């Protein structure tokens, strides 16, 4: 057991800090978020070609770097700090994870190769509503002799209007059995509509599948949507943790400069104590993220992983997502308060973090939802879904 970043992981963090502070500054974020796609494709290209972040945890046999999930978390944390607008979360933390967990060898070989080449992907599952478990899947499939037909709607699909590869969840129209499918986004019968959002730094879309016909090999071998979502929760938590840290740093810098009543407002004890509480949130969030990432790593290692550690996935994911959701929202709200009137203007960046904190809180289940999921593991002895 070793609960600290390795030298190599520290180097990845440092290079991510450097790259993002240059490439994802306030102006870049504002420009990207104003577009429908929501990201700068040239920047995405350099993420893929220079940094190779999109392939961090794709095994070497499928063309990736073969690193672990801790490295994914390290990168996501830094992206969260800089509000990077990119298809990273959708492609890597939803798409790649789905392929790695549910694909057979042929499927992983084919689709990971496309992603390594720079194609974007996402996962569509929810039919809408407040539930973020696999129970939220309402789309249906029926398997014919030669092909599969898919029908239904998918809501809140991250980057769903721009992703090039879709992985979708649906239920057998008779048995209700869940299955996952992978398909090119331009398949016939797939309609995709951008749904503008309050947080403009992450784009959502609604997808409608009307008699979409797929070859039988598009059905992924596995169907453990629950674990795929848990891996995504941990990555999202890492991003939230980075955001929570960034808003703390920016707010402390602001109050150190800002004078009122003849002194910097950083010298007021109530401001100091607020900043201390934000520090606690960010620190504990970080522990939650790295715990979750370590567990995820063992899950992704499959039979080579420590099964005891891997068995904690749903618990670790819900803890990380619950804690980081609340921490980010608390820090962003407190940061906005510490900025006073200017935090309320479009011009300052605080509101971008504040909105991102809210949208991230809701995505994949908020604190209360994840705590109830934990509670049912602790108190009811139920398996989490």
């Amino acid at each position, binding site marked *: 057991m070793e609960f600290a970043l390795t030298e190599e992981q520290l180097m990845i963090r440092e290079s991510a800090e450097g790259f993002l502070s240059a490439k994802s500054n306030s102006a870049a974020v504002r420009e990207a978020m104003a577009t429908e796609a929501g990201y700068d494709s040239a920047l995405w290209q350099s993420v893929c070609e220079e940094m190779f972040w999109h392939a961090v945890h794709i095994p070497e046999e499928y063309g990736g770097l073969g690193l672990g999930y801790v490295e994914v978390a390290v990168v996501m944390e830094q992206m969260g700090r800089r509000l990077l607008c990119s298809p990273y979360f959708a492609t890597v933390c939803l798409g790649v994870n789905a392929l790695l967990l549910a694909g057979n060898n042929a499927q992983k070989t084919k689709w990971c190769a496309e992603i390594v080449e720079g194609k974007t992907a996402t996962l569509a599952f929810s039919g*809408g509503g407040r539930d973020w478990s696999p129970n939220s899947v309402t789309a249906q499939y029926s398997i014919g002799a030669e092909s599969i037909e898919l029908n239904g709607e998918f809501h809140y699909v991250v980057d769903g209007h721009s992703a090039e590869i879709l992985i979708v969840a649906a239920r057998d129209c008779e048995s209700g059995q869940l299955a996952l499918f992978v398909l090119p986004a331009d398949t016939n019968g797939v309609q995709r509509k951008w749904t503008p959002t309050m947080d403009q730094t992450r784009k959502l879309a609604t997808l409608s599948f009307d008699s979409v016909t797929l070859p039988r090999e598009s059905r992924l071998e596995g169907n453990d949507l629950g674990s795929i979502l848990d891996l995504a929760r941990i990555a999202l938590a890492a991003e939230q943790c980075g955001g929570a840290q960034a808003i703390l740093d920016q707010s402390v810098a602001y109050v150190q400069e800002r004078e009122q009543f003849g002194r910097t407002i950083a010298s007021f004890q*109530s401001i100091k104590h607020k900043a201390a509480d934000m520090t606690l949130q960010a620190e504990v969030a970080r522990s939650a993220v790295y715990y979750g990432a370590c567990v995820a790593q063992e899950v992704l290692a499959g039979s080579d992983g420590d099964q005891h550690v891997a068995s904690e996935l749903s618990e670790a994911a819900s803890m990380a997502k619950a804690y980081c959701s609340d921490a980010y929202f608390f820090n962003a709200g407190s940061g906005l308060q510490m900025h006073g*009137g200017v935090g309320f203007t479009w011009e300052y960046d605080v509101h971008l973090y504040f909105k991102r904190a809210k949208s991230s809180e809701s995505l994949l289940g908020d604190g209360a939802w994840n705590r109830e999921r934990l509670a049912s593991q602790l108190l009811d002895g139920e398996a989490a879904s």
Partner: protein
Amino acid sequence: MKLSFSAEDETFREEIASWLAVNLGGEFEQLRYRGGPGDEHMFAHERKVWEQAMAKGGWTCVGWPAEHGGRGLSIEQQVIFHEEYARAGGPGRVGHIGEGLAGPTIIAYGTDEQKKKYLPGILNGTELWCQGYSEPGAGSDLANVKTKAVLVEGRWRLSGQKVWTSLAHESDWCFVIARTDPESVRHKGLGFFLVRMDQPGVEVRPIEQLTGTSEFNEVFFEDAIAEDILGEPGEGWKIGMALLGFERGVSTLGQQMSFQNELNEIISIAKQNGAAQDATIRQRIAEAHMGLRLMRYNAMRMLSDNSGGAEDSAALVYKLHWASWHRNLGKLAMDVLGPDSELVESGPYNLSRLQSMYLFTRSDTIYGGTNQVQRNIIAERGLGMPKEQRPQ
């Protein structure tokens, strides 16, 4: 102490309710429930026409003394007025700064001539007011006034900048606190000025807020002529503080009624989308309902003060209470909507009423004295605890 209204008051309730039922229709129908926080800039012209219709019915300035043109209503009847106005979905009052702040201050400190000049425009809804209090960089430190007033050939001329001024574009008048004595510091040497907005020396620049809209403005004064000074040079702080006192008046009850409309919308969504079955949401809705009801009784206690002292605390905590409550309501609204809370109604950034309210509530704990400043005031004025030290 009792809660029930007298028969006379109930008759009054019918009077205002039926007047609104008849008059808040037709061209004004579209104004129902509009113009609240986060929506203050909408339908400004139509709401000014509505203000004049209110005036014709005798429903402006209902709390002003009759001798100054008001209706001289009792506290109870003012409560009823605000209740019924909100129940009917009456739009946010564009005249509220004139009626609630400028007017009472002019009544208290103005000369007879000033009263004659300014009150009628407020009473009949033809002249709107805005306020020039905050300055950039001053924040909650209201005494940190840099705007200057210089006497040139018998007229005061103002130069400086104010910020967070709502309805500045629509307003005819602005009251401005400015420094009359250039040597003075902080709350000494200030004057309270009444300034016509439509003049070359006044420029209004909208501030784009986190909602993407611009209810608030910066107002730049460059050698702008002040039409009048209220009181004497040097009395600006005293008068300004008195004005802020009026803010805690009966009109807070009107604000509560618009809160109630928001809460009703949230409850109705929760019932529709299933959030009402979520136990933690249920707790929070109950909490919100409680908070609002108790805010009402706290305000009534504040308004009915007869106990000399003890009730002052009810007034001191009022701002902290409603601001924190409203901020929580904003968050609750989003959590009741769930994932749908992210989806904006149309266009690139047309927020819904509740989304806009949610974002706006983050300013409630900042403007008019942040929560931190409110807590200092409660501790120092209410509890006699030591004042914050000022560094030398």
